[in-house]
């Protein structure tokens, strides 16, 4: 008997039906409060942008499969059978019409986990071959790097040596170094690919005398965007194994929202017994340095009006709300909040992998309008975001809505306020790299949910990734 996509989808839905998912499917009171909570709806008030309406598509199928009355009299309850057309609709809803920001959940009187439903739809779309090709490609390339780091390690070490020269110029210390694979270091710093998330942090660590080492892997986890636990685990596993083999006390994740969320809040559910180290964001480490007086910072170095965008993964989902503000108060004299902010901050409109999809440009510019309006109202000239995905989206929003803002990372502002000997030249270099993608229509990022399941492969010979590097 041939297994159809419908069979795969329904089997997967059944596998995922744990208590939280069942509750999310059955509890909605249709009050509509989630409408105003969603940045899509705020930007474009249409029924299709109401989170409860989006979820209803899945609920109709759930009822037709799991509710006796609906099976007997589907028209009474609005139950519908799953079709291939509906599968395509689910993929569009899950990947394009929701950024898994959780603003609907915290505003729902029932605390309904609509993003969990959307993650379930992502998993089904991935299992049935309807997921965005770009996200699959990026996830698979990351897994490949984990299987055999030797394919790039030589080049990587060479790049790090070049970066050390820049670090020495920046810090004025000819002995400054970027340790790689250092056994017994206290901190394992996991950056994103490229120099812009390594060099500023290396300068900060060097200045405070931190005992650290740089990971040979990048922090991004595209598997989580797909709702695909096997891929997401394989990508996270590389870092867990590295931390264990080096014997570090903690993993420090770069300014990347989803990467922090996965390692701090999702991966412990997969590998809990193996977490002999803690996981923190670099933002938390920076705040600690500021509070402990380890960094000498000159707030006049950042003279433009500055605001902060709360990344959903770091803030609402990750709980890192006070720390960035501790740092910002120390690096500028003109910090102004967006309204609303913190837990109630609007998503930038590019989250959950949307910023990586070239075809989603118009959609994310529309969905980012509430954020663009907030930034405009603040009067800020610089927007800080501790998430690469958000920075890329904010840069695009600036171009699209004519905001004329600079977009930067928190670490860059800290380095600028440190007034290091080679500061000017290197910071300009970093800032140029940071904004290089602004105006592009196809950038990238990631994240997900704690309730992921392994997916059956529908694409030829995709084997289970090897766990250990």
């Amino acid at each position, binding site marked *: 008997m041939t297994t159809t996509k419908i069979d795969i989808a329904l089997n997967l839905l059944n596998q995922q039906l744990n208590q939280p998912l069942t509750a999310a499917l059955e509890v909605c009171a249709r009050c509509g409060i989630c409408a105003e909570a969603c940045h899509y709806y705020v930007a474009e008030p249409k029924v299709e942008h109401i989170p409860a309406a989006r979820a209803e598509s899945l609920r109709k199928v759930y009822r037709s499969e799991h509710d006796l009355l609906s099976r007997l009299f589907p028209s009474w309850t609005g139950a519908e059978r799953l079709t291939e057309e509906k599968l395509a609709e689910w993929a569009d809803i899950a990947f394009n019409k929701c950024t898994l920001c959780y603003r609907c959940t915290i505003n729902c009187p029932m605390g309904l986990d609509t993003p969990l439903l959307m993650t379930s739809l992502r998993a089904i779309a991935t299992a049935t071959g309807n997921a965005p090709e770009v996200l699959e490609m*990026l996830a698979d390339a990351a897994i490949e790097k984990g299987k055999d780091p030797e394919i790039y390690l030589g*080049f990587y070490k060479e790049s790090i040596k*070049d970066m050390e020269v820049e670090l020495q110029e920046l810090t004025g210390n000819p002995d400054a170094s970027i340790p790689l694979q250092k056994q017994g270091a206290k901190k394992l710093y996991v950056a994103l690919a490229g120099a812009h998330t390594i060099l500023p942090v290396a300068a900060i660590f060097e200045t405070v005398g931190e005992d650290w080492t740089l990971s040979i892997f990048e922090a991004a986890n595209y598997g989580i965007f797909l709702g695909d636990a096997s891929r997401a685990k394989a990508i996270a596993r590389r870092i867990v194994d590295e931390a264990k083999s080096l014997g570090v006390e903690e993993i420090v994740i770069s300014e990347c929202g989803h990467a922090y969320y996965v390692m701090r809040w999702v991966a412990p559910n997969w590998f809990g017994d193996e977490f002999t180290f803690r996981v923190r964001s670099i933002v938390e480490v920076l705040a600690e340095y500021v509070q402990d007086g380890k960094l000498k910072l000159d707030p006049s170095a950042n003279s433009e009006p500055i605001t902060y965008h709360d990344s959903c993964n770091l803030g609402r989902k990750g709980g890192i709300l006070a720390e960035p503000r501790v740092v910002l108060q120390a690096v500028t004299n003109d910090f102004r909040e967006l309204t609303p902010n913190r837990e109630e901050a609007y998503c930038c409109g590019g989250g959950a992998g949307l910023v990586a999809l070239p075809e989603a440009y118009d959609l994310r510019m529309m969905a980012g309008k509430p954020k663009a309006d907030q930034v405009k109202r603040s009067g800020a000239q610089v927007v800080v975001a501790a998430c690469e995905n958000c920075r890329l989206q904010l840069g695009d929003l600036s171009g699209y809505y004519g905001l004329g803002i600079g977009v930067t990372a928190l670490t860059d502002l800290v380095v600028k306020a440190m007034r290091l000997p080679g500061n000017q030249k290197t910071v300009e270099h970093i800032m140029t790299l940071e904004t290089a993608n602004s105006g592009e229509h196809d950038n990238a990022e990631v994240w997900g949910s704690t309730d992921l399941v392994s997916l059956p492969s529908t694409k030829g010979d995709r084997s289970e990734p090897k766990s250990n590097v």
Partner: protein
Amino acid sequence: MSTQTTGMVLDLKGLLCPMPVIKLAKAIKDIPVGEIIEAFATDPGVMADIPAWCRTTGNELVTLEKNDKQFRFVVRRVK
């Protein structure tokens, strides 16, 4: 310097990872099987990302080299 016919030249300078990979993946669909893409980038991340992408997609990495702060790679479309 490559003596092969270059189907396309990509300027990826200034783009941060994973943008170079995304651009390459899009561009390679626009050249015939057997032809090559020559690309230039400045993000060191390409040194890891491009070999891994070639392995997962089955395309051939012909050259990957670093010249000062610039990276050049040549990829042949295999399928």
